[in-house]
């Protein structure tokens, strides 16, 4: 009779301990999973900007890459025109006679 009661007490106590331990662990798992769900929502929200942003970036980048060679070609043309040698007219003789003599400014008088 006593042993039966002891067995029943041991069984109930053991079940209580195990169930308490299981309950604690399952509560912790539930809290972690709730946190994981919130984090997944956050990631989804943040990653939503990536695809449209990168598409836009690629589109604009392609246009920039296509435009730069044209700018370079224009700049080269300008540089070529700017560095071309300037044409001067042919050297012309003075059209009027000399007004002063070659020695007028000095005291030298040729004999």
């Amino acid at each position, binding site marked *: 009779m006593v042993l039966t009661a002891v067995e029943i007490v041991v069984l109930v106590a053991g079940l209580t301990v195990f169930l308490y331990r299981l309950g604690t662990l399952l509560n912790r798992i539930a809290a972690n999973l709730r946190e994981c769900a919130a984090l997944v929502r956050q990631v989804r929200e943040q990653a939503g900007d990536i695809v449209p942003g990168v598409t836009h970036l690629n589109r604009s980048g392609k246009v920039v890459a296509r*435009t730069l060679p044209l700018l370079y070609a224009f700049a080269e043309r300008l540089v070529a025109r700017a560095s071309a040698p300037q044409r001067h007219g042919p050297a012309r003789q003075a059209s009027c006679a000399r007004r002063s003599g070659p020695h007028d400014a000095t005291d030298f008088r040729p004999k």
Partner: protein
Amino acid sequence: MTDTGYWTLALVAGAVVILAVGALLGLLVYFVKLIDDRVAEVRYTLEAVVEKTEHAALVPKTAATVDAVLSEGRRHHLLLDRATSGSGS
């Protein structure tokens, strides 16, 4: 068999049942603990992922900056076009 014999048999059977239940519950607690540890790892990994994807907000800003570069490039293109056609005439 006498009554004492039946009682002894019942007690032994009860003890065996208690041991079996204890072992199975112990196994259950072990697996649940394993699940708890793995879920915690998943949570830490997700926290690291969130830290990385926070910077994804810079992508649309970069796209807007490239658009600004593009519009500036177009202005340069128009200016150079005018300059080359003006010096050519």
